[in-house]
């Protein structure tokens, strides 16, 4: 060995692998929350590392809003097949049809908040005691206070003022019937770390992250993709632009940025030069200063 220390990416990787193995050892029925976004892809990749040469011992749980990028769904299906893991889908459409939730109205309506009910229902139905997420503490101020092992009561709620202290790397996943945990193996990663890691490991990601031509409309300071769900007002106009997405969520709320970055190298360079946070293009976070905190308390990802 040439050096007797780990570099920062190796250390973050090792930490995440350790956390994933703790999950497997401490819970009965853990799943990976899989959105098709880069963070959940990286978590899935890390799970491969953690259990190699065994298969990933977790199912993937996708909360499907019905407002997907078709590219994301194809990516998800291909990945599930190549890994040989089980896929669970919680459908927001079904939650709407069965009257569990009702749809928001108007131009800025999204299904973002509706996912909470679908997610909690899926957790209950499948008797999931741990949902592994790709959340990172650098994303948002409410997330900066999140634990690796985050306890949820039997209503699925997060109580930020009453979190279990987390010391050293001794994770306490003990819980009572009906409660569950959210675990965030890449808590300590930043957006830049995720991209550097994707590049170093050459991890496959959906084509949406690379610059491509697309029909879009300018709304809330970003380029919203045209889709069957898009409602235009009088002043809005569909145009053709070369864009890429920094984060992936619902097709209705995920804004793209103009970019020519069509390779991982170019994306890493572009992200390094960015002057705005990645969630700056997400209208779900723009609703109020505490939008994320409020949703998290109710049981959001």
């Amino acid at each position, binding site marked *: 060995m040439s050096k007797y220390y780990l570099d920062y990416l190796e250390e973050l990787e*090792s930490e995440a692998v350790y956390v994933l193995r703790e999950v497997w050892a401490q819970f009965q029925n853990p799943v990976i929350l899989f959105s098709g976004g880069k963070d959940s892809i990286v978590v899935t990749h890390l799970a491969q590392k953690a259990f190699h040469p065994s*298969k990933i011992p977790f199912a993937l749980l996708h909360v499907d809003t019905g407002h997907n990028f078709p590219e994301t769904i194809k990516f998800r299906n291909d990945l599930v097949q190549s890994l040989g893991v089980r896929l669970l889908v919680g459908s927001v459409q079904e939650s709407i049809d069965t009257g569990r939730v009702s749809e928001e109205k108007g131009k800025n309506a999204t299904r973002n908040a509706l996912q909470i009910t679908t997610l909690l229902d899926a957790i209950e139905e499948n008797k999931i005691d741990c949902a592994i997420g790709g959340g990172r503490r650098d994303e948002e101020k409410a997330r900066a206070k999140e634990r690796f092992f985050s306890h949820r009561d039997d209503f699925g709620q997060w109580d930020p003022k009453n979190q279990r*202290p987390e010391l050293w790397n001794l994770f306490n996943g003990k819980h009572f019937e009906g409660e569950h945990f959210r675990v965030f193996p890449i808590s300590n990663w930043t957006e830049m770390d995720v991209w550097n890691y994707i590049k170093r490991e050459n991890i496959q990601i959906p084509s949406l992250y690379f610059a491509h031509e697309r029909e879009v409309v300018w709304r809330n300071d970003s380029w919203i993709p045209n889709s069957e769900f898009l409602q235009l007002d009088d002043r809005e106009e569909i145009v053709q632009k070369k864009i890429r997405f920094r984060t992936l969520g619902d097709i209705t709320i995920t804004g793209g940025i103009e970019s020519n970055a069509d390779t991982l190298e170019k994306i890493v360079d572009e992200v390094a030069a960015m002057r705005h946070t990645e969630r700056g293009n997400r209208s779900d976070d723009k609703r109020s200063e505490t939008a994320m905190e409020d949703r998290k308390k109710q049981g959001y990802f």
Partner: protein
Amino acid sequence: MVDNNQLLRFTTAGSVDDGKSTLIGRLLYDSKSIFEDQLEAIENTSRKKGHEGVDLALFTDGLRDEREQGITIDVAYRYFTTPKRKFIIADTPGHIQYTRNMVTGASTANAAIILVDARHGVIEQTKRHAFIASLLQIPHIIVCINKMDLVDFDESVYHKITAQFEEFSSKLLVKDIRFIPISALLGDNVVNRSENMGWYQGAPLLHTLETLHISSDLNKVDARFPVQTVLRPQSETFRDYRGYAGRVSSGIFRVGDEVTVMPSGFTSTIKSLDTISGPLDEVIAPMSISMTLEDDIDVARGDMIVRSNNKPEAKQDLEVMLCWLNDSPASPRTKFTVKHTSNEQKAMIKEVIYKIDINTLRRRTDDVELGMNDICKVKLRTTKPLMVDSYRENRVTGSIILIDDRTNETVAAGMVV
């Protein structure tokens, strides 16, 4: 970014109004780690609150209650990167009642920044912060004497505070203490060298953080490998594979090393050290790997694989420095689950030997009830042996937590004496 960059975790401690949030804001701002939308957001808030200019402290504001009350409730983690290093800040609140948070933030830190207000000098809280940093064995302490602008950048103030700090810190076990006079508000000696304090010859804070020598802080002598789980793929290609998955706590393991599995005492030889990218000849802390042995012996989660010529002690009776983290005090004869590496046993506090008066650092034997934020030396009895090293020698194999079986809450953190 250079590929071989290391990660440095540090914690910040200061009393209310010592300017801790401003310092962190300044570090992030001057190292260009703040995005424009974040800056706009706090510019707006600064204006709404009627502040002059941008209040950098707002960067670290978190939850709604905290913003409304202007305090920090919980440990918050912040990230920034320079061309030399990646940093993780555990930002812990300074109020008296939050010893628990400081202990939490300190548990994984390579370095601690302790803030002292230049106008007030070393106060009881400073001593408490330094004590906790030494208790948690943070290898490097950087004392930032802040608000130097309010004492006319006077060198004698700096020397006076340095002397005050050194006087009481000589009683603590800290390997490396440094002092830096700063003004977080104006940016002096944070990222950029101060023009107002030419008399200070040392490095500014960021440069200090970038160059602290941390590779030697890891214990490279005592090879310890707690087993997290056993990998048995039973697939075509790996039919007889039996790998012990875990993360190296300390020391170095090499293929061919003679090892002992504790507590069973069986011995074998390391056959391979595996990762998904292929086998390695040797592994160091804190690498996560899968280890296979030459002999087919019984190994399970909770066991520890160690080099046969250097073993930890297997103990059922432990003396532990315990920090109580829960609102409800410990009642006598309560049974706990103790977690130590991947090992879990039942435990009972047999005796509280003394309590440390956190303000005077004196030992008290008259009051031995364990309540929130108390730090005590206790005798612990476990149902089965734990394979421990002293915390001073090994922060991973010397640390434990106690979980109350009735509530499942983590109620105490302990360091093996």
